[in-house]
């Protein structure tokens, strides 16, 4: 996917932006990490401000953990540099860096009590025993584990172990806390509770959080800013709304939320709008200096698509045929086929004024000009999920009833 040659400029501007800003707590400057001939992290650069909740989001194997491990000091960058509070730490071992990690499987010391687990940090930094203990107790209170201080990790539930891991990582008063999918092992309910808990603790201690996750919802709800990664590269950095409303690449648009991604051809740009040919019609979308030319992708979020059944309005729209209707609770998911055969997905809220629709009905799909985005590169080929759905649908239709 990355061979369209657009990302390098993207990440280069991100680097420049990070370098130009005020002094960041954590700065990555053109960091690359290779294992043998495999590139795990590829020319990544960004800065994280003090007190920020910063997420690294991306699919499995995209290099999130490797990036985090380089910040923690477990891996040395192959090239590029990492600065903590302004000092280059690229070759400083983990035990001399003032950042702490919450590991995915907690990595609590099984032979120590909760209190000793938490006091291990200050003890390692040669804090006197009594002080280390009182500091440990203080942090154990912050994570509300004071009733379990004398237990061993094996006698705690997953959520409780999670809190201890958090306390242990906070007790050294780090300049930043690194969390590698800390909620990955918890069930959905506990996960949501812990998300709130994490935000509360972050507010309370005011420490920079670098949070690794592959769960886009988690990243969107918790983060101040998100870096979306793919195949070792940072695709886009921005606030959750920026990432959702104005994805920079086809990958980001497809990875965060749901998106209609249609191949299109840019035919002209004028007064801040781009005209594209897509879905057998000429459509407009807002343009900026980064807008591509020629072959591109038009993106529209399903909830921005309006569907009208009766007499096509003069407003620009696309004629389409209803192919599928799924009631999904708060929204109805409508699948439409445009004149050129492309699929248009629309999410229609409960306040719609649509008549009763069935597959085969003719409708018009439209959206505000501002809802469309022209992205560089072609949309990805239909993925296995879609393919499977279609086969299933065919089976369903041909089955005797």
């Amino acid at each position, binding site marked *: 996917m990355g061979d369209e040659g657009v990302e390098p400029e993207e990440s280069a501007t991100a680097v420049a932006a990070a370098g130009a800003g005020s002094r960041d707590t954590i700065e990555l400057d053109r960091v690359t990490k290779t294992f043998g001939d495999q590139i795990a992290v590829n020319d990544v650069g960004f800065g994280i401000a003090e007190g920020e909740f910063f997420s690294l989001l991306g699919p499995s194997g995209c290099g999130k953990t490797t990036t985090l491990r380089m910040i*923690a*000091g*477990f891996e040395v960058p192959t090239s590029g540099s990492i600065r903590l509070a302004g000092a280059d730490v690229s070759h400083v*071992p*983990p*035990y001399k860096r003032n950042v*702490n*990690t919450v*590991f995915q*499987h907690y*990595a*609590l*010391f*099984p*032979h120590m*009590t909760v209190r000793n687990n938490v006091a*291990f*940090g200050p003890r*390692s*930094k040669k804090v006197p025993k009594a002080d280390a203990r009182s500091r440990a107790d203080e942090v154990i209170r912050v994570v509300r584990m004071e009733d379990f201080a004398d*237990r*061993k990790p*094996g*006698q705690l539930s997953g959520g409780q172990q999670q809190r201890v891991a958090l306390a*242990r*990582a906070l007790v*050294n008063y780090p300049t930043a806390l690194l969390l590698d999918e800390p909620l990955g092992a918890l069930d959905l309910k506990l996960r949501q509770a812990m998300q709130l808990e994490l935000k509360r603790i972050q507010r309370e201690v005011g420490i920079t959080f670098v949070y690794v996750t592959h769960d886009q919802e988690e990243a969107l709800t918790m983060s101040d800013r998100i870096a979306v990664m793919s195949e070792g590269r940072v695709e886009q950095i921005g606030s959750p709304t920026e990432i959702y409303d104005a994805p920079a690449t086809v990958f980001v648009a497809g990875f965060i939320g749901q998106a209609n991604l249609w191949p299109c051809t840019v035919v002209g740009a004028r007064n801040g709008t781009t005209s594209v040919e897509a879905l057998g019609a000429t459509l407009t979308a807002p343009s900026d200096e980064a807008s591509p030319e020629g072959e591109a992708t038009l993106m529209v979020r399903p909830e921005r698509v309006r569907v009208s059944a009766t007499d096509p309005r003069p407003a620009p729209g696309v004629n389409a045929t209803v192919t599928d209707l799924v009631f999904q609770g708060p929204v109805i998911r409508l699948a439409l086929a445009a004149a050129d055969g492309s699929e248009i997905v629309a999410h229609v809220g409960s306040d719609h004024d649509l008549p009763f629709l069935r597959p085969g009905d003719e409708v018009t799909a439209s959206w505000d000009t501002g809802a469309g985005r022209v992205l560089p590169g072609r949309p990805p080929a239909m993925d296995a999920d879609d393919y499977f759905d279609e086969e299933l649908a065919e089976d369903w239709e041909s089955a005797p009833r």
Partner: protein
Amino acid sequence: MTTLGTRPPETTPPAPPPTGAAPSPSPLRRVGPWLLNGYAGAVVFILFLPILVIILFSFNDPVGKFNFVWKGFSLEAWQDPFKYEPLVDAMIVSLEVAAVSTVISAVLGTLIAVALVRYRFTGSGATNTFLVLPLTTPEVVMGASLLTLFLDLNWATGFWTIVIAHAMFQISFVALTVKARVRGFDWSLEDAAMDLGATPLRTFLRVTFPLILPGVVAAAMLSFALSMDDFIITLFNSGNEVTYPLFVNNAAKTALPPQINVMATLIMLASLVVIGLSQIYTRWRTRG
């Protein structure tokens, strides 16, 4: 179904319909467990028979110098187990050799095991292979070649050559045993310790070592036993030093007092106590 259809029609008559009563278990079903238990019991009995004989004959009141024929019950040997000084000396030599060689092999074997599991380095594959050799090579070959080496070096054989010879196979044994334990070790614990500010040394002493200690202790105990009862390799490299197995072997030609049995029984009791204590310790640790 299609393949079935091409087959010639079945010629065998259909199985007789089940009789009304529930099928009674075959006789083998009922006797089977008894046979199995009886067999297992017999095997265990045969395995332990020599040990039982040793214990039993420690209470014998033997005729003459040899303790081979049961004559009558006596507590005489137990009342004075240390009557024969050479026997006691030999036991002390054995204990000393085992203690020294076990400490050496426990330390070196553990370090080898950790290194082999934790790191990939040039020669790690070869080390893995060489590690097995001392345990698989016939003891005669090991003993003889070691002796050749000591002679070449012009070293007088004695206490320290026995220690070296024992440590050689004990290191292999400890390394292989501890390796099995270390392989299941969660290395992110080391990352966590260093992340919290512990130096590599403190990480090893406070996190890695305490967690693999049970494996090290078990390996050390077994390798202590290996040293205690080694005969062939010791025979080659002992010089004038006499260990317990060597003494018993010599004594078998001249005199076998029941004190030998008493001492063997004492060793056995001691090892049972150690095993029991380690069980209690493990249970206490896991209970927390």
